[in-house]
Structures are given as C-alpha cells and as structure tokens.
C-alpha cells in the first residue's frame, strides 16, 4: 500500500471509531456539563432519580429496538403502556376482594396483565408478517385501538385501587442503610424521626436492569436474536436461509408489546394510577433513544447497550435541564437536534460493519 492509502485507512478507522462511539463521549460531556451547572447533579440521589423516572423510556426503547432491527417500527408502545397500566390496576382491584392476600394478588395481576399485553403485539405482528401491512400503519392502527379500549375501560375516571404492596414496590428500594442499624433489603426500616436512611437503588430500577440484561442477552446471543438481525439485514436472504421470518416477526412485535406492558405495570406501581395516554409522549423518546444509539431505521443494526446509552443521554438531558431550572421546552428542541445529529454522524462516519 502506498503512503497515502495507509494514512487514508488510518483516518477511515478513526472516523469509524468516532462514529461508532461518539455517544459515550457525548454522554460524558453532558454529565460533566450539567454537574458544573448544578452542583447537586453529580450525586447518588440525582442518579437514582434519573434511573427511577427513566425506567419507562428504558423499557420502551428496548421494545422499539427489537422492532427497528427488523426494519419495522412500533408506534403503539406508548398506548400499550397506558393500556397495561389501566388493566393492571383494574385486575388487582377486581382480585382484591377475593382475599388472596396481597402478594398473590399482585403476582396474578402482573402476570395476567403481561399475558393480555401480548395481544396488541400479536395483532401487530400478524398484520405486518401475514397481511403485509406496513408496520407504520399497523402499529398506528393499534395505537388507536389501545387508546380507544383504554378509555373505554376506565370510562373517563382514573384507575385507582392498587394494593399497598404494589405501591410499596413502586416507591421502594433495594437496599436501605441506616447508621446504627444493620442494612435491610426491600423493606424500609422503621426509624425515629430525623434519622437519615440512605436509600439505594429503587426496586423498579433493579427489575428494569434485570429485564434489560435478559433481553440484551436474547438479542445478542440467542438464535432468535441472530434471526432478528438477519431479517433486518436482508429479509429475502433470511427467508431463503430457512429462517421462519413470519414467526420471528410475530415474536418481535409480541416482545415489544410485552415490554411496553411491563413499562405500563411499572408506571402503575410508580404513580399508583393508570392513564390511557401515560405513555403517549414517551414514543418520541423511545425511538430517539434507539436512533441515537446508532441503529438504522432500515434495520439490521443496533444493540441494547447503545440504545440504553441513547436513553441515558435523553434522561440526563431531561434531569439536567430540570435541575438547572431551564424550562423543559428547550428539551424538545434539543432532542430534535440530537436526533438529526445522530443520524448525520452515522452517515458520515459509519461504523465498520462487524
């Protein structure tokens, strides 16, 4: 190789590296910026708030990632979240008087909601894979249906009546550290007034982390995940290689709906109420997180880790702006700009394919 081409290759590799990893740099800079701007930003407390309120976006963006990797999109996740939040509370309300005891009520309620929450996804998947309806339309239709059904169920009133256990989980933490008392898990120690209790890692963050870990593994290391990438890369080649494309697509949309339902249940636990449009504004964030994380809307690329970084970038932005006292209006503008920026970088400094 001549000297020029060697230099070109080096430059190409550097650009490629930067293109693939700019999100880490950006996140770090963001954190530094906001820490300088507001002293209390760089604190355990702020971190926990960040993760706690970001849970829905983490789950929704992971849901969206799976679908986007296949080259599709799922516009219904926001309203599936709302739907699940309502159903979970209604179910537990209904189970309550049966006297099963709180733990069982909550467990059954959660499982039943997750089961019901698969339905929107299965319908989406069926429409996309078997009827060949474009994902945009199919999931948009489902968005409307979920919205309608949710509103019909609650009939204009907020759903309430969550068992106390659920609310406790929603606001509880994994670890409590108090001076002079042995650390306790999951349950808040009873202390005298004025004694400080250090709360570490909210329960729902733990749950989310576990779920994210599981699905990251599924996407990266299982045959299912491999097939998902293949479908997004070249659907014809995937079909011809014997991959059961239709079943996989069904699975992907069901998975998306499952995660959205989980997010809805978490929402219910956190806010002790269900709201039909509770997730409406989160759709943008979810898709933005995936795109910022480097996945292509045409499918075939993207990882859970990157998507989570993308979601973190948005969460940090949100919290940072709030703590700095800037009106959240700016947030929308910035998200829009970052989104476009992310895609442009991807185009000009594409990451070398594995």
């Amino acid at each position, binding site marked *: 190789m001549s000297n020029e081409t060697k230099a070109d290759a080096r430059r190409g590799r550097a650009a490629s590296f930067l293109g693939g990893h700019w999100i880490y740099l950006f996140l770090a800079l963001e954190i530094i910026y906001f820490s300088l701007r507001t002293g209390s930003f760089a604190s355990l407390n702020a971190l926990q708030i960040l993760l706690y309120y970001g849970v829905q976006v983490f789950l929704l963006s992971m849901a969206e990632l799976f679908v986007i990797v296949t080259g599709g*999109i799922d516009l219904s996740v926001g309203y599936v979240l709302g739907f699940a939040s309502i159903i979970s509370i209604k179910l537990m309300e209904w189970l309550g008087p049966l006297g099963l005891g709180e733990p069982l009520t909550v467990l059954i309620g959660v499982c039943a909601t997750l089961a019901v929450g698969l339905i929107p996804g299965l319908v989406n998947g069926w*429409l996309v894979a*078997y*009827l*060949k*309806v*474009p994902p*945009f*339309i*199919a999931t*948009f*239709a*489902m*968005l*409307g*249906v979920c*919205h*309608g*059904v*949710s*509103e*019909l169920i609650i009939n204009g009133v907020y759903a309430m009546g969550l068992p106390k256990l659920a609310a406790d989980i929603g606001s509880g933490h994994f670890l409590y550290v108090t001076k002079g008392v042995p650390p306790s898990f999951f349950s808040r120690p009873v202390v005298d007034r004025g004694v400080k209790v250090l709360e570490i890692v909210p329960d729902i963050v733990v749950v989310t982390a576990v779920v994210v870990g599981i699905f990251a593994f599924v996407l990266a290391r299982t045959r299912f995940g491999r097939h998902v990438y293949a479908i997004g890369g070249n659907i014809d080649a995937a079909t011809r290689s014997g991959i059961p494309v239709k079943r996989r697509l069904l699975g992907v949309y069901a998975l998306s709906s499952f995660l959205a339902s989980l997010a809805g249940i978490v929402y219910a636990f956190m806010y002790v109420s269900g709201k039909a*449009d509770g997730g*409406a*504004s989160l759709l*943008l964030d979810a*898709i*933005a997180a995936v*795109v910022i994380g480097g996945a292509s*809307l*045409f499918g075939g690329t993207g990882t859970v880790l990157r998507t989570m970084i993308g979601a973190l970038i948005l969460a940090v932005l949100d919290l940072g702006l709030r703590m700095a006292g800037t*009106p959240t*209006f*700016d*947030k*929308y*503008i*910035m*998200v*829009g*700009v970052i*989104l*476009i920026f992310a*895609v*442009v970088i991807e*185009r000009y400094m594409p990451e070398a394919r594995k």
Partner: protein
Amino acid sequence: MNGQSAAAGTAGGFLETRTGRALASNWAACFLILMFAVFSLTSGSFLSVANFQNVIHLQTLPFLLAAGETFVIITGGIDLSVGFVTGLASVCAAKSIQVLLAAGMTATQSVALSLAGVLVLSALPGLVNGLVITKFRVPPFIATMGMWGIANGLALKISNGFPMTGLPDKLPEIGNGYLVYILPGQFVSFLSKPVGFANSRIRELLRLLPYSLPFILLVLAILAFALKRTRFGRHTYAIGGNVDAAVRSGISVDRHLVGVYVLSSLLAGMGGIFNVFQTGIGNYTTFNAQYEFFAIAAVVIGGASLAGGKGRIWSSAVGVLVLAFLENGLAISGVQPFYRYIAVGVLLVVAVVIDKIFPDLR
C-alpha cells in the same frame, strides 16, 4: 403472500368486475356514504345543514395538513412535524399581533402584517426538513421527527406554555363567519350578522356557507390542479415511483423534495394561522392532538401508499371527511368517542389491504 391471495381469492370473482373495481377504488367514499346512512338513523341531528357545516368548518386544518402530507407521501416520504409547525405558526402569529398592537398599529395592520410574516416564516421548517433530508440523507421519518421536537419546543418557548390571548375580537368573527345569514321568513343578510341582531337570538338564525368552505375548496382545488396538471405534480409522482428514473430524466430530485417539504410546512402554517382566526387565540399543539397522525391516516385511507407513487388531493380530502364524520357521528349518537380510535385503526388496515390487493388502482 398468504393474506392477500386468500382474501383476493374469495372475493376474486366480484372484484374483477368493473363494479367491483370501481367500488374498491372509491371504497372510502362508499364508506362515507354508508356512515351517513347509519348515523342519520341513530341520531336525529346528524343529517342537518348546521351539523355538516360545522364539521367541515372544523376540518379546515386537517384538510390543509392532509393536502400537504399527500404531496410528501407521494414522494415516498413522510412529514411528522406538521402538527407542531401548526402550533408554532399559531403562536408566532399571536405573538406578532400582540407585539404590533402594543407598538401602536391598528388591528387590521397588525393582523395583516403578522399573517404575511408568519406565512413566509412557516416555509422555514419545511426548508430545514428538506435540506436535512436531501443534503444529509437523513430519512424523512427521523428528520421530520426532529423538527417535531424543535417546532414544539419553540412554540412552547414563545408561548410559555399558555394560550396567547389579547387578540382583536374581529378575528374569531371572521374565522367563524358565514356568507349568508337567514332569519327564516324574515330576512337574508350577506357576509355578516344582521345589524342590531341580538346574540341571544343566534339560534334562530340559519347560517349558510362558512367562510372556511370556499377558502378550503379553493386551496384544495389549486393543490389538486398542481398535483395533476403541472410538471411539479408529475415530477412528484415520478420521484415516488422510481427515484432513479427521475434522476436520470434530468429532474433535480433534491430541489424538488425540498419544495415538497416547504409546501407541506407552508400549509401547516396556513392552518396555524387559520386556527388563530377560528379560536381567537394562539396556542401550541398538545401531544394528544396527533394532528400529523390523523393527516397521514386520512391520506392513507384516501388511497395513497406509504411507499409513494400514489395519492390524490381529493381522495385525501375524502379521508379527512371519513375520519371527521366518524367522530362526529359517534359523538352525536351518544356513543363514546373512544370507539373512534378503534374505528380509525380498522379503517387504516382495510385501506392498506385494499391497496395491496389492487396496486394498480389510480
């Protein structure tokens, strides 16, 4: 391929006939008529001049957005930012009027100036969209989603999250004015309520032809003409049909696309201004409004394909009417409006399936 072939097979015989094809290509209009029939039975007040006029009057914005979206979708793109550009225009118009009034201009001057200014300004989001899409090759979905956020943020900033009031009262009068006012058996007056007519007696008045009707008909007619009979329209279809063919035929695709997105955002701006006239205030667009989604739904129900190459202005207008009268009919019949969402979902899927079975329908 299973879904379509099965459906096509069973319905095959009928659908091959001329009537079958005619029905399928105009299914949205047929559905509209069907709805009219059903709703006039379920509710006494559905089939009334007042109701119809009211619905159409309120659809002015959706008509404008759907028309703009039609152009964009035909090129194979999509514009998710229109709802928020509308809000931005509404807010900017209100702000501008407020500022000019405070600076001492008359109501007419400040309104006229603001209108002109905001109209020109509303080309900007479209310009940005178009440039980002063509120069940076950002997919339209993302680019307009980005603008979605930016326009929304700007609108919120300018309005501080509150509706902007303090505008001349004449505005909603014009915005909601009718061409003809008839007091049955007594008199007829044109362009404005009869002088000295008490507002308390307004229900006795028969109002015909809201200003918005000729306005929207004119705009739609111009756009339909542009799409069907000008080079611009022809090239729009060509780009949607085969971008390579368009490029190789010497069409400057990039410039054209920018033009299409500018058109879309101009129409959204027009809609925002119209909103100020209708409501008398300037307001940002809430997330719930989902203007852009309904515009896109209307266009798809009207027969366009998201892949591009198909679509018509009047068909999209029918799509808007289908969605509007669906909601109206359900509300008037006392049915929970939330069924509307479900119905829209089903309609969309039907639209797409029909499109798949008959890809050649014009």
